[in-house]
């Protein structure tokens, strides 16, 4: 499709929809409704929204949808650390039920017993999976869960009078940026442990940095590299000894279900992304849920309300003793809670463990095969990866000049998605793959074949890769100035119209 912007479809007088109207009786009694309005508050100039008929709006967005590569459509293993797994269709039908979509968050508890039951039973399941004692599903994303955990750390030390003193949070290099970023928002200084030559954080480094200024320790395990730190209990012990709180970034716990738990590794809190490990969809980037679990002694700090059950009726407990307040309005994202609940119910305990086993099998198979591709490598320890791996094209880039970003664009031509890494690029020319349990050997082989082909091209005709893509909706973007120059950037169509008049040059499709 060569689909214009919605504003370009503007035809004055057209309508997409008619909103319910005021009854004539009310209009007769009340008038136009504006009389009561202070003159200065009445909008004088209509918003310059486009006027488009319903069919054309639908066609527009349907076409845009077809120009989007949802994970339902491809072998979506290129977004390592994000656990792009199969989103069961039945769950999507379940969350479209008006008995969920048309619930108001302030309805009386007696009218939402079904939803509260689902929340409560997911809590029970999460406790089994993690070994934690209580869960809150309010954080609507991993970042918000990390923020909530940093807030709890702050509140906990605040409660013991150490809030001011303990102002450092320790993290590691191969972790999600939000671990550090959310702690910074809560006023913490960040101490980052670097990996050793095998990719593990060093116990000695940790020992050096812990002190009575240590507020907390946040880490993922395995980290983005897929490497599991076997000494994690020693890490948490050291932090505990120094008076710090250990919290576990389990955004992606796909290789660990039923295998190992936060509790045994000594963590005080953890969170799971329901939109990753628990098969809720990513929805272009949310809404999502970061399910936050804590041990008993931290329950009082949870954002409220949480759901409790007296054996018969479910109720909302708003009265947590030292709650950090709220991190998101109402009850988080109940649709995603229900999805995760449904997913767990479709697998059971054995099924969850099977998920972990196949995720790890798939990842090791992929790891084995990718390492055989010319110019590709997997830095750090040989073997020992769980559910994902951060790879490197360092050698290929040195030998051909083709970078990981070039490969990324070229992968589009094969119908694949491919992600590099968070910044900073500790691993040079990185790419991060995570096959999850959802993909078959044949799927993995297809992805591997594409990488192999691109490597071949890089060595034989590098400009082919460098000028990619060729079969995308658009060609290669020339971005620099349009994104970083305040005179050129345009975050909205109105800003674009003010700054540029560049429609002419646009390539028209046939």
């Amino acid at each position, binding site marked *: 499709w060569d689909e214009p*912007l919605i504003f370009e479809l503007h035809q004055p007088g057209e309508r997409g929809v*008619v909103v319910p109207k005021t009854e004539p009786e009310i*209009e007769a009694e009340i*008038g136009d*409704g*504006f009389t009561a*309005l*202070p003159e*200065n*508050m009445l*909008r004088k100039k209509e918003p310059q929204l486009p006027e488009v008929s319903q069919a054309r709006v639908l066609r527009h967005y349907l076409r845009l949808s077809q120009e*989007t*590569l*949802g994970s339902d459509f491809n072998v979506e293993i290129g*977004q390592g650390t*994000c656990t792009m797994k199969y989103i069961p269709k039945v769950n999507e039908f*379940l969350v*479209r039920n008006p008995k969920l979509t048309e619930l*108001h968050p*302030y309805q*009386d508890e007696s009218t939402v017993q*079904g939803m509260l039951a*689902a929340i409560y039973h997911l809590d029970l399941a999460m406790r089994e999976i993690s070994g934690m004692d209580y869960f809150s599903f309010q954080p*609507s994303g991993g970042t918000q869960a990390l*923020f909530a955990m940093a807030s709890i750390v702050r509140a906990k030390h605040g409660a013991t009078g150490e809030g001011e003193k303990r102002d450092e949070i320790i993290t590691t290099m191969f972790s999600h940026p939000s671990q550090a970023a959310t702690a910074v928002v809560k006023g913490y200084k960040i101490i980052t442990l670097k990996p050793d030559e095998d990719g593990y954080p060093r116990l000695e480094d940790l020992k050096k940095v812990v002190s009575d200024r240590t507020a907390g320790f946040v880490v993922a395990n395995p980290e983005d590299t897929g490497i599991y730190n076997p000494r994690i209990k020693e890490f948490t012990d050291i932090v505990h000894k120094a008076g710090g709180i250990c919290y576990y970034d389990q955004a992606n716990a796909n290789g660990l279900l*039923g*295998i190992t738990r936060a509790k*045994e590794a000594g963590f005080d809190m953890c969170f799971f992304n329901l939109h990753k490990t628990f098969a809720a969809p990513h*929805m*272009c980037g949310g*809404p999502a849920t970061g399910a936050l679990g804590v041990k008993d002694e931290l329950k009082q700090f949870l954002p409220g309300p949480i759901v409790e059950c007296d054996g018969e009726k479910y109720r909302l407990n708003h009265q947590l003793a030292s709650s950090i307040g709220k991190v*998101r*309005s*109402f*009850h988080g994202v*109940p649709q995603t809670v229900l999805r995760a609940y449904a997913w767990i*119910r*479709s697998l059971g*305990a054995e*099924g*969850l463990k099977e998920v972990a086993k*196949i995720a790890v*099998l798939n990842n090791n*198979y992929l790891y084995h095969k990718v390492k055989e591709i010319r110019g590709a490598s997997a830095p750090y320890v040989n073997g020992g990866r769980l559910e994902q791996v951060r790879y490197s094209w360092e050698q290929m880039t040195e030998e051909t000049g083709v970078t990981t970003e070039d490969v990324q664009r070229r992968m589009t031509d094969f119908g*694949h998605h491919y992600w590099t890494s*968070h910044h900073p690029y500790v691993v040079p020319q990185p790419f991060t793959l995570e096959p999850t*349990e959802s993909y*078959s*050997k044949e799927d993995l082989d297809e992805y591997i074949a594409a990488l192999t082909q691109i490597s071949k091209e890089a060595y034989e005709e590098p400009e082919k890769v460098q000028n990619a893509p060729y079969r995308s909706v658009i060609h*290669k973007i*020339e971005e620099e100035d349009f*994104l*970083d120059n305040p005179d050129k*950037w345009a*975050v909205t169509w109105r*800003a*674009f119209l*003010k700054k540029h008049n*560049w429609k002419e040059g*646009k390539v028209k499709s046939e």
Partner: protein
Amino acid sequence: MAIEKQIAHPYIPNTVPEVQEEMLREIGAESIEELFEGIPESLRFRGKMDLPQPLTEYRLRQHVETLLNKNKSCNETVSFLGAGCWQHFVPAVCDEINQRSEFLTAYAGEPYEDFGRYQALFEYQSLVAELVDMDVVNVPTFDWAQAAATSLRMACRMTERNEVLLPKTIDPDKYSMIKNYCSPEINCTLVNYDGISGQIDMDDLEEKISTKTAAVYFENPSFLGFIEEKGSAISELAHQFGAISVVGVDPSSLGVLEPPSHYGADIVCGELQPLGMHMNYGGGQAGFIATRDEEKFIKEYPSRLFGIVPTVKGEYGFGDVAYERTSFHDRVNGKESVGTQTALWGITAGVYLSLLGPHGMRELGQTIMQKSQYAMKRLSMIEGVTASRFNSTNFKEFVVDFNGTGKKVEDIHQALREKDIFGGKDLSSTFPELGQCGLYCITEIHTKDDIDRLVKEIESCTKKKSQGKDDKHGAS
């Protein structure tokens, strides 16, 4: 020919033993167990998780539907609940688009494979920009509360100050979220409201504002439903002290109410849920932040901002404007944090605004004003009831004062519930100074009959002064 007991799970293709063996052979491992050797035995969970037996798809569906049938939804009743989450008309096209497999399961692709996602979000930004009449809008954040909290943090960074003022009529839950998000570095102070009108008490504001004030935050309509009329004066005062004027807004009002940018707002934030999202028990929330197109604002956004950028062939491409400010780029020095938030609701809000257009938004606003004024008028005719409690113009929500009836809101609402009516939000514990008051919401979906029924039932249950709980058995 017995039923196989051990079968591959439909969600896990590689449970097939032959395939597993082939893969293990390739890896050079004996068993899958071997691949977990990196996890020490002391950390291994050797128990069995206590979870219910797995269900087949049909039974799962039956089970969950049975569960959900225990709920009573707002379209089986008449609901007057609002207070931050509102029951509006959701066009079918909005649902169709956000249920599309492509949008539902996309995530973090590049503009090459996810072109549609970028364009749809860019359009959303552009459409909301028209609504608020400002040039920059972000990819949506979690909700209004988060948008407000981030707006205040942006203001603090821009002014290098750490005090913010907020109106005492703010939603207490939203305030608790903002306070936690701002602590420990930023101090939040509440400004009193005028007891008669509900409007911000300008004397108190003048007293509390200072050159330490980073931002003055207020809302239109306010949490209690009335329109804050002195927007210009408040913004001017803020600017006099070098502070930023931050205004939170319900976008469903912007077809008829002036956008805050017209009365001095520097940052506008608000809630997208009214623009095409079902309530979803609160899961439909999404926040937006809008500013002028000035570098000093853009640099302080933590969110992604998609901008147009040409391709080598001159097509429209899209990319992240000023990416270096984000925590994706710099985890320690980036602005706050960014991650999965509410992109699908952003796309949906774009669909909604495309469908309604300027006329639809105006009619929406006007219909809401007419119907809510009608409801207030009729409710006020009930003996002992006043609506609104405040002497200002309202939009969509208003405070119903039951103090004159001698009844508790709780009891009135219980009686209404028995008639399949959900009364508004009980304010008696969160705004104790108002006594027995409820925050009621009327949108375009309410009919005259709905309102008349509400009035009749309130009349009937407030009249029977002494009967009280006995009502219960009269329910149909």
